[in-house]
Each structure stands twice: as structure tokens, then as C-alpha cells.
């Protein structure tokens, strides 16, 4: 019995790929099964890898990229191997296809509240390298959080460019522009390019001459932080994978969607030294409200809707 995870990039990105791989390893260890990691597969055709992993005996294939959500279910049907895919809530099939469309929107909402509280210039920025659904929902929730905290805080939204996942220079350039437009907190989502955003934050002064802070998503970049990381919407995918393995054993695989949220800490806001304790306390209180449903946070996945939201919040 083994499970396999396929990721588009190397699992060393303190982000999507690394979280997926780490979670798969942890879940496998907990369940006492082997794990095969196929990383850095890119966004092309993964059918060969899927078939090979299946033929090597993997009993669950985790296709950890939205780009794999056509290929993986097809291979599942072809070879009768269960697969887990993302960003396809409608694709469930019992025993074969499970979806784990994850969204840290609840966490992003808190991050928005945090940003609005802490912005000295009353202006924050969102920089993304692309517009996949899970990022869109976080961008939207972040903006909602900002506005909920203080409607006067300006939210600036910028996409680096098409297929700019590895455009670190673009990330830096766009982030610098957004900072120049007044933002002193950047909510950044991107793979390789997020390091360019981090670099911009580290090397550019805010309008008031002070520090610009960075809020990251999915991973925890603390090990490489130089004191500019304000927080991160950290995901923990392990419970999801653990539940999948359990469902496989219980023969309920493919009957339900998995999600992550604040409730079980599978989404949480990273506490750093840059966050004052009183602010953190307030955020923790808000967390409870979100969990209890007192503050409803709905995910918005569509890029156009997100942009529309930004335009309306920008005004």
C-alpha cells in the first residue's frame, strides 16, 4: 500500500508544492503507508507519470495541481486507481475521484483584518502571479477582511502577468509599483515569483519611510525571513490526506469533498514577532467569530469576480 503525490514544481518552495508533499508524507506516515513523491512535473501532460505510479502499485494518486484535474480522473477510470484532484468540486466519483478544493479564504479574511489594522498608510496591496481559483478566493477574502476592518483602507490588486509563476523580476517590479502607490502591506501569492515580492518588500521603503510588511500564503517562510514577514495564511493539508486515506479504507472515498478551515487549524494565521500582542488577540477573537459563522466568509473563485470586487473596493 502506498500513496503518490504529483506536484508541478519542486517541493522546496515554502508554498503549495512543499505543503502538499510534506502533508502527504505526514499523512502516509501516520497511516503507515509508503509515499512516492513525483515533483517538478510542470504543467504539461502528467498522464505518463500517473500511469507509471499506478502501475508501480500506488493505491492513491494525489494530483496536486489544478492543471492535473483532467488527466487524473481519466487515468483513475482507465486503471481503476483512486485519485485526488483539486479545484473540481463537481468531479467526485465514488471510489475513484475525490476532490479537495482547498481555500484558505477564512485565513485570508483574517489576514485582511490584520493588514487593515496594521497598515500605517491605510493602503494595502495584493500581488499575484496568476489567477487560479484558490488564490482568487484568498485575494477576495483578504480584500473583504480589509474592508470589514476599515472601509477607508485602499486595496490595490495587481497580477504580474500571464504565466508568470517563475517571474521573480516581475514580482519584484510589480510589488515595487504597488508599494509606490501607497501600500505598506503586501499580500502576495505566487510560486517562484513570490520570492521577488518578498525581495521588493525587503528592499523598498513605504511612503512614510518605514518598513513594508509581507503576508504570505500556504507555506511558512519564517526560515528565510529577514524580518519583513508579517504573517502567512498557512495551510495544513495533512488532515485532508489523512481523511482521504481513511475514506479509502472505509470505502467512502469519492463521496465527499474535503476542505480546510480555521476550525481545525488546517488554515491558520502565522504569528510573527511583527504582530503586536493586542492585535493578535483581536485577530484570535475574530477567528472565533469566523469559525462560529458569526462572520460569514464566502469563497469567490472566479477571476473576473475577484477583479470586480477589487474595483468596487478600490473606489
Amino acid at each position, binding site marked *: 500500500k502506498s500513496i503518490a503525490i504529483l506536484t508541478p514544481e519542486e517541493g522546496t518552495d515554502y508554498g503549495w508544492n512543499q505543503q502538499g508533499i510534506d502533508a502527504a508524507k505526514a499523512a502516509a506516515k501516520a497511516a503507515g503507508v509508503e509515499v512516492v513523491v*513525483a515533483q517538478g512535473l510542470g504543467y504539461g501532460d502528467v498522464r*505518463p507519470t500517473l500511469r*507509471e505510479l499506478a502501475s508501480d502499485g500506488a493505491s492513491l494518486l494525489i494530483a496536486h495541481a489544478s*492543471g492535473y*484535474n*483532467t488527466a487524473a480522473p*481519466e487515468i483513475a477510470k482507465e486503471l481503476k486507481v483512486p485519485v485526488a484532484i483539486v479545484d473540481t468540486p463537481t468531479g467526485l466519483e465514488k471510489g475513484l475521484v475525490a476532490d479537495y478544493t482547498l481555500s484558505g479564504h477564512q485565513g485570508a479574511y483574517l489576514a485582511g483584518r490584520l493588514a487593515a489594522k496594521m497598515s500605517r498608510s491605510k493602503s494595502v496591496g495584493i500581488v499575484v502571479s496568476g489567477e487560479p481559483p484558490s488564490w482568487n478566493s484568498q485575494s477576495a477574502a483578504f480584500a473583504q477582511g480589509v474592508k470589514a476592518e476599515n472601509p477607508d483602507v485602499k486595496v490595490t490588486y495587481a497580477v504580474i502577468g500571464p504565466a508568470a509563476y517563475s517571474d521573480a523580476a516581475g514580482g519584484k517590479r510589480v510589488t515595487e509599483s504597488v508599494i509606490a502607490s501607497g501600500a505598506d502591506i503586501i499580500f502576495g501569492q505566487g510560486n517562484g515569483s513570490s520570492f521577488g515580492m518578498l525581495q521588493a518588500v525587503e528592499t523598498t521603503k513605504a511612503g512614510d519611510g518605514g518598513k513594508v510588511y509581507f503576508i504570505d500564503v500556504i507555506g511558512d517562510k519564517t526560515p528565510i525571513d529577514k524580518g519583513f514577514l508579517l504573517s502567512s495564511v498557512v495551510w495544513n493539508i495533512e488532515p485532508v490526506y489523512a481523511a482521504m486515506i481513511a475514506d479509502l479504507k472505509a470505502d467512502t472515498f469519492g463521496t465527499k469533498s474535503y476542505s480546510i478551515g480555521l476550525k481545525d487549524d488546517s488554515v491558520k494565521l502565522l504569528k510573527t514577532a511583527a504582530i503586536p500582542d493586542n492585535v493578535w488577540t483581536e485577530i484570535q477573537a475574530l477567528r472565533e467569530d469566523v469559525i462560529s459563522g458569526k462572520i460569514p466568509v464566502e469563497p469567490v473563485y472566479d477571476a473576473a469576480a475577484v477583479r470586480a470586487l477589487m474595483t468596487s473596493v478600490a473606489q
Partner: protein
Amino acid sequence: MSIETAPSASATALDATAAVATRRDIQHRLLMTLGPILAALIIAGCILLAVGVDPLAYYGFVLEKGLFSPLGIQQTLTRMAPLLFLAAGLIVAFRAGMWNLGGDGQFLLGAVTAAASAPLFVQVMPAWLALFCSFVIAMVVAMIWSLLPALLRAYQGVNEIITTLMMTFLGTSLANVLVKLVFRDPGTTVPQTRTLPVEDRLPRLFGTTITSGLLLGLAAIIIVHLVMTRTAFGLKLRIVGANPRAAIHSGLGVPGLTIAVFAISAGLAGLAGAVDILGVQGNVRADWNPAYGLAVIPVVFLARMNGFAAIGFVFLLSVLSIGGESAARRLGVPKHFTLVLVSIVLIVLALAEYIDHRYNQSRRA
């Protein structure tokens, strides 16, 4: 010094020696292809050793997973289909002296239109007809995309390297715009086109996972080879390529032929996109760009624009990319090592050809 030709008498004799020469030639070519590949593997092996990986294990996996395992060979053959179409298109262009470097843009637009049209067509017509129509549409769209560089080259003499490169940048963006805004599947959150159901895609061969696109690709490249070498049309194109002034002098309609070359070359690139979508992928996602074109260009040169040789090299490329991916994963090398391997193979093959050429020359002297 100058040898008189004794035509009718020696014609047959000449042919006979030619046949013998051809057999030896094939042996020689095989040697001159496999030898360099071996050398390249040794060089790449040193890099592997340097990063602490056992090269023999690596190559073992490459061969096993790319060539000798039933699964691997099926994957390899499937991967070949779009590459063959692209190579066929490049053969036409390069033989006619046109540097169509816009293959990726044409490929993507072909892919997007095929992906957009096929799922609609299958709802109203038999699957085979739907596939056929999608192929045609993909081809036509790619042809249209090449029209501007073709016209600029034919009537204004604007260098096509520039225009096709720019059209490929434009085409890549346009393909994304089409996927995101025009042909987007409303049923998914991810921007992608509607998915063609697996059962409506090109049939697979003999119960394997090999797509019948492989046969289409083989047919395309062989037809192209025969047309280019055996027909008047192919000869005209080759004249335009080898000496455009001679083509004008000989009364060939150079502008028309130029446009034809672009159309055929782009059409084949569009078909490459279509065969990949209709045979394997089923849909196109936003920002998808496998950039096959760049990898196929050197292959076509190394094959000296010979269709059969190109088939061999495309096969090699597929084995390396399928097997390399697998081997890298098993041994913990980043997948990018495959790029290094392909690069070394290309350079060593080019060097070998040079040495071979030199050797032949000095032998004749």
C-alpha cells in the same frame, strides 16, 4: 579529371552500386547516431556522478521506463504524435528556406480551436466526423495565423524569423485570452476549455494507451517527406529554399509558393496541437504551453530535414523525455536534468556529424 558520363550503360551499374552504398550508408548512419548518443550519455553521466547519482541506475531507468517496459514504450509512442506533426511542418518550411520559428503559437492556436470545437461537434455529429472537423478547423486557424508573416515575407521581404517569433508571442497570449474569455468551460472554476470525453477522442491502438495520433503523425511526416523529395511541388519549394533567385528566374511564382509553405507548415503545427488535444489532453488549460516547437527544431536539422531520420530523432527525444522524467524521480535528481541530457545529446550529435563530414572529405582527397 572530368569523368565522361556513359549514361545508359552505366546507369544501371550506378544504381546497383548505389543500393550497396545505401545499405552501408544506413549502417554508417546508425553508427554515427548511436556512437554520439553513447558519448553524450557518458558526458551526462559525469554530471550525474558529480551530484552523487549513479549514472548506470539513471540510464537503466531511462531505458526501462522510456523504451523497454510496455508502459514506457506506449507513453513514448504517444508523446511522439504531436512532435511528428511539428517536425513535418518544420521540414516543409526549412526545406523551402523559410525559418518558421512560430511553431509554438500555431500549435497553441490549433490546440485551442480543436479543444473548443470538438466537444461541441460531438454533440451534433458522429465522433469521427467531429474529430475530422476539429482537425480541419485547427489547421485552418493555424494557417490564418501564419498569413501575416507569409504575406510580409512574400511581398515585402520582411524577415520571417522576426515576424514568426513575434506571432508566436502573440499567439501564446491570444490562446490564453481565448481560453479565459471565449471558450471557457463554465462548469469549472479553473480556466480551461470544455473537455472532450475520453471515449470521443482519437481511438487508441490495439487496446494499448498509444493514441492513433501516432499513425496520423507518421503518415504526415512520411507524406511530407515524399512530397518534398518526389513531386514537382516539393521540388519547387526546394528551389525556392535553395536559391530564391533561381526560382524567380525559372518562372516559379515565388510569393505564392512562399504563402503555400507558410500555410502548410503552420497547418501541420496546428494539426500537432489538435492531435495532442483530441488524442490525449481532451482540453486546453489557460497558460498551457508545452513548447514542443523549440525542442523539435534542432531535431529536424540533425535529421537534415529527412522525414525518416526525423522520425528516429523524435523517437529518441520522446524516450529521453519520458524515461528521463521517470529516472529523475526515482533517483531524486530534479527533472531539469533531462534538459541537460537532451542538450548534450544534441551538441554531440552535431559534432559527430561535423567529424563525419570532415572524415569523408579527407578520405575523398
